């Protein structure tokens, strides 16, 4: 925590969801660090716990059913989980902001888009109403929306435009950390390209750090510095983008890459991961990926697999790395 560059540090984060008698371990002892200006991509499939991690950081987990049962989140030397609610309200939206997956539902349908941006500005700044409106109009222009549309309602905007509004809202107070939860999944490819570029430009301009949640490895390749692969509530591989794309080590990560239809090669059979993600209510002992892993051994299910550093800055949660390399590479 004494490291000047480090802005975010998550330690042993644990979140469970309860529905009736069922308990789902959504996030299981997740730890990672982030430096200022860095983009960390959280990659994984539906239900892996990516969004839950982001919502825990911002402190907007829906409780019930979700419950944060352990861990620490340090932002610029302050611990967020134990922070009193009133103080935390100042952090939300001012220091940490979030962009949501579905722009269609992320905006209040009964409020003009301008007012929704102004709302956050008034909360975290000493602006007068007029100043806030002016700033909000500035934000709209910044994300490529004419400021005349300040008074329009969300239904008058297309999906891509709504996402721009959401981005304007998130960046209005110059947060130091931006959580982007699948910001382009609901958009068309050409619009996705526009939005990704927009986020990138604005982020670089203000030196904002970002956690990008996505399932699209292409988006990861284009936007992130470091990558954490999440599977069944655990980070199973963490590396710089270059390391991860050039030498993916965990069998799951390798499987993900093999599942992608190639853009540069012709038609051939894919080598997908077999089976389906595990039932989150009863995760297997040891490695959660073991039932689907082609390299599974008896050791895999014995005990918790350590998160080992296999190369400098490249961590992997697998106990059979050596055998794998023989067969794979």
């Amino acid at each position, binding site marked *: 925590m004494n490291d000047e560059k480090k802005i975010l540090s998550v330690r042993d984060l644990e979140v469970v969801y309860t529905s009736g008698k069922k308990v789902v371990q959504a996030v299981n002892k997740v730890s990672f660090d982030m430096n200022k200006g860095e983009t960390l991509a959280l990659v994984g499939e539906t239900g892996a716990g990516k969004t839950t991690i982001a919502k825990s950081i911002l402190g907007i987990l829906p409780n019930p059913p979700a419950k944060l049962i352990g861990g620490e989140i340090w932002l610029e030397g302050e611990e967020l989980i134990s922070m009193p609610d009133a103080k935390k309200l100042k952090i939300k939206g001012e220091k940490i902001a979030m962009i949501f997956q579905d722009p269609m539902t992320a905006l209040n349908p009964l409020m003009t888009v301008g007012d929704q941006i102004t709302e956050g500005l008034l909360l975290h700044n000493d602006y007068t109403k007029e100043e806030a409106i002016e700033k909000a109009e500035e934000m709209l222009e910044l994300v490529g929306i004419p400021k005349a549309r300040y008074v329009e309602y969300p239904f008058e905007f297309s999906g*891509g435009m709504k996402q721009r509004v959401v981005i304007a809202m998130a960046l209005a107070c110059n947060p130091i950390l931006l959580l982007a939860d699948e910001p382009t999944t609901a958009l*068309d490819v050409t619009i*996705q390209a*526009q939005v990704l570029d927009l986020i990138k430009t604005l982020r670089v301009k203000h030196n904002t750090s970002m956690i990008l949640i996505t399932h*699209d490895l292409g988006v990861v*390749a284009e936007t992130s510095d470091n990558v954490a692969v999440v599977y069944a509530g655990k980070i199973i591989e963490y590396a710089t983008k270059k390391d991860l*794309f050039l030498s993916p080590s965990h069998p799951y990560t390798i499987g993900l890459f093999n599942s992608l239809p190639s853009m540069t090669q012709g038609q051939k059979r*894919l080598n997908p991961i077999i089976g*389906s993600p595990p039932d989150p209510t009863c995760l297997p002992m040891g490695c959660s990926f073991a039932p689907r892993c082609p390299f599974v051994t008896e050791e895999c299910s014995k005990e918790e697999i350590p998160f080992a550093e296999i190369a400098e800055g490249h961590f992997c949660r697998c106990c059979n790395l050596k055998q794998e390399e023989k067969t794979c590479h």
Partner: protein
Amino acid sequence: MSLIEVQNLKKYFKVPTGLNHAVDDVSFKIEKGETLGVVGESGCGKSTLGRTMIRLQDATGGKILLNGNDITNAKGNELRRVREKMQIVFQDPYSSLNPRIRIESTIMEPLRHSKLYKTKAELKDQTHRLMELVGVDERLRQSYPHELDGGRRQRVGIARALALNPDFIVCDEPVSALDVSIQAQVLNLLMDLQEKTGIAYMFVTHDLSVVRHISNTICVMYLGQLVEKASTEDLFLNTLHPYTQALLSAIPSTDIYHPMQRVQLKGEITSPINPEQGCRFLARCPYAIKDCKQPQKLEEIEKNHYVACCRVREIN
């Protein structure tokens, strides 16, 4: 003779503000055992095209030929025969299966309607054969759809489409709701089935990497019209239409050393309601000139490579 031939197909919808030209003057052929990919962004009419072809919706104009027979206006028994030959796999595995009907009954239903199987035992045998074919475990036959994950549900949808031994299946974004690893499994399944049965697909999707992986020929649609049609390799190596170029360049690439040179498009997809006469891509096209306000025709620029753009030769 092609398996399917579509000639100048049109499908318009009345909406409060005018006429939605969802599919406007589209023509192509699909051969037996071949896969035609149809790519486009949301609202370009690609799903409507598929549904109109298999007669789930009536065409506004044009012709659909199945094995040379005009089926555009088939009715009654003829339509039933047509539907046995042409099937569809839907995008959303959550809404495409009836939540109150068990897996087994869902797959059995087309078999019952075909009246090909006399006894219950025959029906059950055939159903189980289908389940095996698509890789749905037999012990799941008494399950309800909500008890299955997305991949398995999509397999059930495929089994239902295969039940009547069709010659042709429209796959309407069958993998876009699935996770990457499951998506690959379903793609493999579709390709295996094609190898085994010689079935033809029309693969409708917005995902260019998927369409490239599975198709022989690709059509690119923009606001109801075809803008480019070519064999898969041709389209990717020698992209001609400015929209296709932009579309291809917009896909985030996993190749971290050779990021794509991006063609940024201005604006968003315009409305297909009461469109202007000229090129529909006009407003967003970086190369637009006055001539583009004339109607654009799909022309054969190179062998088997069709493009609807009057400036295609100058640009490339």
